[in-house]
């Protein structure tokens, strides 16, 4: 498995944060960074997904012809899509089982699941089309869309570098200015994380992870960018701590440009998340020696982010059900967090063990076939 690196570390960090933040009311939520931050782990996760795409495109996939790159990335998108369908179905079954065992029909409402049970014909079509998403299970649908467009991102980078940033920014600005988002169905509404705007932070992650273009510019001027980022991060901490939000009536049109909206990834949130990246980029190398065991664990999670993400989604839902049964006690919350982190770690370790086992098998010569004996 690859050595510890910054992207895996922060991915692991984002995964742990998402696990805790997806259990409403849990005691330990107060220690997650969103309490002192304008943006949260969702921005970090999507930005890092962009970085990971760049590392793939510039690394192991750099020699691939365009059609093979397209095939590889679309296969990955399909893999994540299958994971989303699987994890959603597991969540539905988990809630249904809990509702039956506890004789608690209200659990069938949680996180927008009610349409599955009350309007199953339409809701199942919506699940497959990703237009029906469960609450807290709405990051993977965004990720599917981003991976689906990943070949376009990668091929534009190869053929027309300057256009990529312009196109991505153009779609972001258009969506923000006109409030355009993808619809949900059968429950009327819009996507919780709008792919039309969130693609921009994905593309920025992709571009900034490279050594040329804006990535090269950022590296050359990192000290200056860090000084610029510092007041933004401090302001973001104040906003997060005070829960300040601009007056949507007073701000001029187009209002989404001036609010702190998460669905549309408002510019303030985007700038804040980029400032966090500028300030903390490279920090991993400095503090890694002091937290070697923790960083080893977080990198393990980060290396297996899809498996871990699916697991944490179900673990956080299980945590919610446990809190419903036993009440919101700190001791129970501590147990949920400890068990959750343990299971996530074991699953990531098992995934790597399986890969190593496969690699070992592949490297050994096959034993001669036994004679049939009859």
């Amino acid at each position: 498995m690859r050595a510890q690196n910054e992207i895996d570390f922060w991915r692991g960090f984002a995964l742990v944060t998402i696990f805790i933040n997806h259990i409403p009311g849990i005691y330990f939520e107060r220690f997650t960074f969103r309490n002192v931050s304008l943006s949260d782990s969702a921005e970090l996760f999507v930005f890092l997904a962009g970085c990971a795409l760049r590392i793939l495109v510039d690394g192991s996939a750099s020699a691939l012809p365009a059609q093979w790159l397209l095939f590889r990335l679309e296969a990955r998108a399909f893999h994540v899509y299958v994971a989303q369908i699987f994890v959603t179905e597991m969540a539905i079954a988990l809630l249904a089982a809990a509702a039956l065992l506890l004789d608690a029909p209200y659990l069938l409402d949680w996180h927008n699941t009610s349409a599955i049970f009350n309007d199953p014909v339409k809701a199942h079509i919506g699940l497959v089309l990703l237009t029906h998403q469960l609450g807290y299970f709405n990051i993977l649908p965004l990720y599917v869309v981003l991976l689906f467009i990943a070949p376009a991102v990668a091929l534009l980078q190869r053929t027309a570098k300057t256009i990529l940033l312009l196109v991505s920014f153009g779609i972001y600005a258009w969506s923000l200015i006109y409030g355009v988002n993808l619809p949900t169905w059968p429950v009327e509404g819009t996507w919780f994380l709008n792919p039309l705007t969130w693609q921009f932070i994905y593309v920025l992650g992709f571009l900034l992870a490279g050594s040329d273009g804006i990535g090269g510019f950022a590296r050359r001027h990192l000290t200056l960018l860090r000084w610029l980022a510092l007041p933004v991060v401090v302001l973001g901490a104040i906003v997060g701590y005070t829960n300040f939000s601009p007056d949507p009536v007073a701000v001029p049109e187009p209002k989404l440009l001036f609010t702190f909206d998460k669905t549309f990834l408002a510019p303030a949130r985007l700038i804040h998340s980029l400032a966090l990246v500028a300030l903390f980029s490279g920090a991993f190398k400095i503090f890694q020696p002091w937290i070697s065991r923790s960083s080893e664990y977080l990198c393990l999670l980060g290396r297996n982010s899809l498996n871990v993400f699916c697991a944490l989604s179900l673990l956080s839902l299980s945590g919610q059900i446990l809190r419903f049964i036993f009440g919101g006690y700190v001791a129970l919350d501590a147990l949920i967090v400890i068990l959750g982190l343990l299971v996530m770690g074991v699953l990531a370790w098992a995934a790597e063990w399986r890969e190593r086992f496969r690699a070992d098998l592949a490297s050994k010569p096959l034993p001669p076939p036994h004679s049939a004996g009859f």
Partner: protein
Amino acid sequence: MAAPPHAEEASVPPAAPPLSPPCDVPGTDIAAPATLPNVTQALQKGEKIRILAIGSSSTLGLGASSTTRSYPSQLEVILEHALKGVDIAIINRGVAGEVAEDTAERIKSEVALKQPDLVLWQLGTNDALARVPPEEFENTVRSTINWLKANRIDVVLVGVQYTSRLARDENYVAIRDSLRKIAADENILYVRRYDAMRFIAQRRANLQLMASDNFHLNDLGYQCMAEHVAHAMIISLFVKRLRPIQN
């Protein structure tokens, strides 16, 4: 078309819409009036009233036979009938099973996009079931109310429903009490669904307000909910003197 009534100025203010026999409960079991300054101002100007109905399954209308039987849809009809000539537009943004913290996030987004005059926020049940600490729930609700007030948007809290099973649940009671306290402290209109539904359940035991799952409302349940919210709003819009909240 009849001229729209002007709140607090109309010579004969519209009477609160009569409650249908199955939904009839004492006014004190519905709400204590509180001012709705922004809607009042819009009425005085004869403008269209835009209402954002947000919350969970009771807003979405789970258990109703069709979307037109959800409480926001029925409320729109009742209000337009009561405030003759006034154009009322209610946007339904119910998401089943959602806790207040997530709804609060959506409120900010929806307010920026739809710019409503009033937010009808139905809440509490899912926070109680998710065991969200009442003080945390209270902080979320208070900060959102203050944000809405600062942005000159009226807010009406629509409380938890009555079900015999959850009536003894510690968290459920704590969240219900928390809502009462918030409404009293912030002087905002709070529709006490729990009290109204309990009155009906105790006095008219043969009436079924719930769907077959015994958790969501049925058409009659939503009709009563819409009537109670409409009653509370009209009384508040045209009230001359406020009565103290009676718990």
